């Protein structure tokens, strides 16, 4: 047993890093869909925009990373606000119209980013102080990913507390559960919706800035992270921060430990896990009761 643990410890640690990265993406998608009933297929584009921001601004110094984070924050706010404004007129016209619109925006944005940054994958270096590997119980592991786990873990805890324990969070959860009732109490739900959209977008771009050294920016990365976060949302359940967190951590392990244990089945593990959840518990493992 200790031999098995020793062989797969690094995979498990890496699964946590991967899972937390997915959480920063999936939570926005989940809340926007859960609350506004808006399917935002441009969500992966926000990650990519953040990752390109990190590539363009990070120069190996802490200041570069800080600058990239600030710019990423602004990009996220603007992007989220624009997307929210774009889909607002489509309220109540069904998912297909929203999907078509956001997918169109995603395709245009992807082309624009290729025009600016070229068609290469652009590996992004972390701050030089973190650009080395350390020994984790005798196994070499990149220091940046350890720090990422700490930072992203902190973000996850803060998001969780904000949504589950604060009054603003209660308002958001109430809007997820019954939008009309919240409106009836005199709250302008559109502001809540806009706020959540922008918040989710900021998390995705900040995830992109911090995640660029792990999933480097390049053409097609937007689709890949979008698919991963959609799977996380399906597994975790809609509109729930807890669901997104646990779903993301689960998919993180599937993508690292699962692949290490069954490398031959690597292409099928992700969707295999999704299929299993759909068959056994179609509303998601941790869905907020709305059915």
């Amino acid at each position, binding site marked *: 047993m200790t031999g098995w643990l020793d062989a797969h410890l690094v*995979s498990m640690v*890496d699964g946590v890093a991967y899972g937390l990265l997915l959480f920063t993406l999936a939570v926005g998608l989940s809340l926007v869909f859960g609350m506004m009933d808006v399917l935002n297929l441009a969500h992966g584009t926000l990650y990519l925009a953040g990752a390109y921001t990190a590539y363009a601004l990070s120069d190996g110094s802490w200041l570069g990373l800080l600058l990239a984070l600030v710019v990423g924050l602004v990009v996220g706010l603007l992007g989220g606000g624009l997307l929210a404004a774009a889909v607002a007129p489509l309220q109540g016209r069904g998912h297909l119209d929203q999907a078509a619109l956001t997918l169109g925006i995603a395709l245009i944005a992807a082309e624009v980013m290729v025009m600016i940054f070229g068609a290469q994958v652009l590996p992004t270096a972390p701050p030089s102080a973190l650009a080395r*590997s350390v020994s984790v119980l005798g196994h070499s592991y990149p220091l940046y990913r350890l720090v990422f786990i700490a930072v992203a873990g902190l973000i996850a805890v803060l998001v969780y507390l904000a949504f589950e324990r604060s009054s603003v969070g209660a308002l958001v959860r109430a809007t997820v559960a019954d939008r009309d009732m919240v409106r009836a109490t005199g709250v302008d739900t559109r502001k809540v919706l806009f706020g959540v959209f922008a918040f989710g977008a900021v998390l995705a771009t900040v995830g992109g800035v911090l995640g660029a050294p792990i999933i*480097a920016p390049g053409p*097609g990365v937007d689709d890949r992270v979008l*698919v991963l976060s959609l*799977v996380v949302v399906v597994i975790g359940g809609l509109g729930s921060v807890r669901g997104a967190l646990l779903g993301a951590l689960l998919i993180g392990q599937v993508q690292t430990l699962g692949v290490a244990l069954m490398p031959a089945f690597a292409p099928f593990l992700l969707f295999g896990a*999704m299929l299993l959840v759909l068959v056994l518990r179609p509303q998601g493992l941790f*869905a907020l009761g*709305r059915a």
Partner: protein
Amino acid sequence: MTTRRTSYLLALAASGALVLSGCGGGTLGGGSDDAAAEGPIKIGLLVPQSGVYKSLGDDMKAGFEVYLEQHDDKLGGAEVEVILADEGETADSGKAAAEKLVKQDQVTVVTGVVSSAVMNGVVDLFETSKIPLVGSNASPTTLTDATYIWRTSYVNDEPGEALGKYVAENVDGGVYFLAADYQAGKDEVEGFKKSFGPAGGETVDEVYTPFPDTSNFQPFLANAKSSGAEALFSFYAGGAAVEFVKQYDQFGLKGDVDHYSAGFLTEGGVLDAQGEAAEGTFTAMNYNYDLDNELNKAFVEDYEAKTGMKPTTYAMASYDAAKVLDMAIEAAGGKADPEAINTAIGEITEVESPRGTWTWSNIGTPVQMWYLREVQEVDGTLRNVVVDELGELGSD
């Protein structure tokens, strides 16, 4: 029921997005189409101007142009007009561009083609329209009986085959195979095994990583490390090559497990992106910019003056395609006659090239020397340096 329905919808969206991401289209690039019967010989240059292979396309375009510039824009004494078409990144976009060149622009010969999928897709087009295609990169192992298709590069499995025997003889212990899960990756591993097994090499395991979805190689590298293998043989190119080499370093395999690979792993721009992590990597390739011959010196100098970069094997193969056309058009009397040019290409017995002199094999690919290269720091920058010869391939 709403959540159940929306869950299915999301699952559908997840699968749909996967499919959609696969069908990015390529656009047809410039080119004029005056249908003048007399005038310069029209040569179609079919290389990617967009998509993930764009940098290879840029290298090939530059290599071809360097040859033309060295020869006053003439091939075989005739004026030529190069018509550029965008191969894009899928078989469909490449096929559409090839059809435009052949049918609309009515070119006499075509050169280029990066992707093996495109090459497989255009075989019938060139064989039935009897237009010679002097390919300068893609060369699937299955393409063995074409009459009008030539390649100045190599057969896909040759970089692996060149390396197999050397690794079997020089590595004291088992070798772990890791390759991207698509045709080129499998061809490379098959080629490697062709010469590795007979020379007494010992295989630990053979694992293929999903392509292009794998950006995190950690679980695969962890397995390779704990397997106790002495060396790793890999096949990756482009963005995946950068990620793979960096993670090979980050997860502590560097210095513990020797890394051998087909030359694409460290060819061209990817080496800069890999940085120090790539140092000490061994690769097999049919060309390196530091080969010591007069033709190569002139080529490297002119190429650097034009692009500011050292030429890659892709640029060199395209340069040679121009050379082959130069010789063939001259032998065909300088006329825009596809049949005569194709016959003349087949009659070429020796091509003087920056890689050294090569001849045609009986399937229309070069019989050529292969080199072992190591990534070393030269004057403060990382470069591929030739450290050994791996022997000649292609003659059987």
